[in-house]
């Protein structure tokens, strides 16, 4: 077919035109072989701009379109749709990125213009070798998976279920509820966390569209958007969920109560058979086999004896459940960082140096101290409390996290206020770098702490916390406003430790092929415009897995993720990516090398009759299942004969780009 290529150069207002001589680019690219049309316009992505492209496609019977504009990640789809509407195959469009890669980073106009021309040439060279591609279709399994049963996961699941779709929650711990269930009160309203969370948990458990897999983990994920297949490992609970009545006798009678309580952050212990907390859902205990005497020594079996329902089952095995899903929402939440790098705060040396999350448990009526504020060392009530902010957050020296954990300022204000309210004789001092209170009623809340509750906020850092022989703590800090060294006595020190994504997220992200940033937060498809979607189609982000958030933000994002998932599940068919691999059976050796590197199992082998000049034989050749192929191209390089090629990014196309750039 004869090449008739149209080139459209966008000014992007002054974004491009200020640094790139757009007219010159048009002039130069018009000379390239195959180019029959070249023009520029203020905003190619605007309706008028798109109309220009459409018009040229029709009038000049263009066979290929090159748009020199912003990043293809921005408007490739826009221009492809535009081409399609004008009757050109959408895959006959290529973008030369002359904004992000040229105008925004170069100052010298001549240099920038020259580079824009070269990128344009590369795009022209590539588009000359483009072939019309047609997207295939794949089905959508109308079921969603939510990984993580905290408030984010619960909210997402409820919203999806509400829209009428089946949804499964996989929760690693024995109960849903997550981090929020550990909190005592919530800012800025100071309502009780359990009071608002428990109804949601119950609702999730009662909703017939929702299936809970607690004490379970995602083991394996295969497939792709609309058609994921997931293996869920339901860990052996050693308790038959169908029989257990949740009476709690077993926990009471369990002779081994030495296991540290995860729920209470290790501040106290629990029985070997346990539910994490009273309102746990499901209200079915789990035997912690690492601490259970029966499992450790073979002798005991008390729980089995006392269980009237006969629910105890020591023989229970892990179970693998395989289920298909159309969409997956990741809501794996967070934990606080380990404080190993912050020895100066004496967290490991003194039980009276605690984290904020531990304080939550201490303040909580169901916590290790039944809600009494007391030192963990001697169970005495403290007189002076010091809160240290930004422990591991906003860190520039590499010991902690570079980001702001976002919630600490507010919860510290909450803690300070609650303590001052309940124990007015306790002096509360907060060392802070900045107090950040952007949010509805947040600053008002903070000001109440300072103004109404007289919490002593000191702008400055704490250099060292020293446990003293008398059991007290000395806090060495600086006051940056008065510019002086401070040394003060404290009975308890509370560290606002940075939050970090749940450490399991790496494994999960790898399984999901979802990308992850350097801080282990999942990357969103677009920081601003697609904040709840992963770049991997069909994977959505809910809650802190995407970045630090407080509860209201988490809940609203959870809802947003649900809506995106629902939008996907509502479709009957999805168009698949046509940029898939294809094997040339004439050149294929049938050696299986390509199949070895295919992450999707998309390549199989068939005996096919091959005909060519002087050839007529049955050969073992590779066949690509284009519904499974995601177009990574690993196979194309594994194939020594070049039989495997990738549509849309073919060997010859890339070589044409290389040639054009090196010309």
């Amino acid at each position, binding site marked *: 077919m004869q090449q008739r290529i149209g080139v459209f150069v966008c000014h992007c207002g002054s974004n491009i035109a200020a640094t790139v001589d757009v007219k010159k680019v048009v002039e130069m690219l018009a000379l390239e072989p195959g180019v029959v049309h070249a023009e520029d316009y203020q905003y190619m992505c605007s309706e008028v701009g798109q109309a220009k492209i459409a018009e040229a496609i029709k009038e000049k019977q263009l066979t290929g379109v090159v748009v020199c504009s912003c990043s293809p990640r921005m408007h490739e789809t826009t221009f492809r749709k535009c081409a399609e509407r004008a009757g050109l195959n959408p895959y006959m469009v290529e973008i030369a990125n002359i904004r*992000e890669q040229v105008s925004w980073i170069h100052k010298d106009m001549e240099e920038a213009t020259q580079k824009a021309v070269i990128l344009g040439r590369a795009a022209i060279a590539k588009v000359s070798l483009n072939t019309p591609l047609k997207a295939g279709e794949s089905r959508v399994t109308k079921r969603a998976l939510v990984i993580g049963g905290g408030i984010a996961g619960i909210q997402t699941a409820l919203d999806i279920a509400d829209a009428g779709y089946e949804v499964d929650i996989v929760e690693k711990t024995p109960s849903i509820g997550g981090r929020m269930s550990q909190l005592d009160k919530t800012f800025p309203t100071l309502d009780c966390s359990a009071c608002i969370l428990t109804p949601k948990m119950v609702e999730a458990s009662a909703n017939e569209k929702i299936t809970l897999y607690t004490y379970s983990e995602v083991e394996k994920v295969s497939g792709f958007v609309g058609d994921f297949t997931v293996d869920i490992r339901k860990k052996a609970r050693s308790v038959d969920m169908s029989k257990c009545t949740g009476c709690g006798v077993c926990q009471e009678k369990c002779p081994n109560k030495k296991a540290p309580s995860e729920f209470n952050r290790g501040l106290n212990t629990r029985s070997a058979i346990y539910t994490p907390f009273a309102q746990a859902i499901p209200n079915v205990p789990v035997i912690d086999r690492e601490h259970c005497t029966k499992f450790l020594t073979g002798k005991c079996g008390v729980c089995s004896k006392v269980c009237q329902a006969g629910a105890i089952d020591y023989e229970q095995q892990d179970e693998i459940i395989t289920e298909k899903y159309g969409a997956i929402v990741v809501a794996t939440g967070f934990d606080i960082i380990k404080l190993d790098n912050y020895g100066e705060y004496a967290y490991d040396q003194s039980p009276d140096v605690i984290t904020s999350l531990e304080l939550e448990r201490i303040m909580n009526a169901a916590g290790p101290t039944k809600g009494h504020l007391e030192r963990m060392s001697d169970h005495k009530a403290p007189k002076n409390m010091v809160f240290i902010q930004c422990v591991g957050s906003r860190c520039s020296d590499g010991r902690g996290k570079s980001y702001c954990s976002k919630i600490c300022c507010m919860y510290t204000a909450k803690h300070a206020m609650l303590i001052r309210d309940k124990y007015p004789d306790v002096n509360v001092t907060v060392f802070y770098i900045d107090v950040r209170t952007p949010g509805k009623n947040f600053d008002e809340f903070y000001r109440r702490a300072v103004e109404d509750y007289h919490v002593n906020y000191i702008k400055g850092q704490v250099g060292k916390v020293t446990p003293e022989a008398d059991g007290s703590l000395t806090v060495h800090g600086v006051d940056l406003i008065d510019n002086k060294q401070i040394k003060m006595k404290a009975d308890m020190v509370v560290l606002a430790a940075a939050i970090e994504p749940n450490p399991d997220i790496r494994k999960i992200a790898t399984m999901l092929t979802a990308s992850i940033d350097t801080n282990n937060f999942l990357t969103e498809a677009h920081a601003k415009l697609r904040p709840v979607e992963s*770049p991997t189609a069909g994977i959505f982000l809910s809650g802190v897995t995407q970045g630090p958030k407080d509860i209201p933000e988490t809940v609203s994002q959870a809802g947003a993720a649900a809506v995106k998932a629902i939008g996907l599940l509502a479709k009957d068919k999805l168009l698949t990516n046509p940029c898939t691999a294809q094997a040339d059976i004439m050149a294929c050796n049938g050696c299986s090398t390509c199949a070895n590197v295919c992450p999707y199992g998309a390549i199989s082998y068939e005996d096919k009759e091959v005909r060519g000049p002087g050839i007529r034989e049955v050969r073992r050749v590779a066949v690509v299942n284009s519904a499974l192929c995601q177009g990574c191209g690993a196979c194309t390089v594994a194939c020594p004969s070049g039989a495997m090629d990738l549509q849309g990014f073919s060997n010859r196309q890339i070589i044409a780009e290389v040639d054009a750039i090196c010309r």
Partner: protein
Amino acid sequence: MSIGANEEFRPKIVAFCCNWCSYAGADLAGSSRLAYPADVKIIRVPCSCRVNPMFILRAFERGADGVILCGCHPGDCHYSTGNFYARRRMTMLFSMLDYIGVENGRTRVEWVSAAEGAKFSATMNDFVAKVTSLGKNVRLGDLRCKN
């Protein structure tokens, strides 16, 4: 566009960037206005594992002075394993090029995530400086493509 004898040497650099991380990182570098030399020209590929050694040699054949491949950080590949294969392939290829006496500074692999605009820019600045210091690529190129 040819380089006169008295002009300073400006290298030709081809950068293969995976669509999901590094290309996005380059976009972020752009939107953050983090400059790097115009000598770098990016070719978008779906994944670092799409980059065939043939492409890299082709670039050198055609007169490139340096070739850099950027992909997602190991473990973060959009296709889960692509960059692992790319890593082995490029280690092998670069080792061989080094072995046959091609300056090893002309080739590089760097993992740049979508969030690392600054790293992208810094990497490119550094790579261009390195290749510039090596001068024109004379050991691996086709005479017919030179002048």
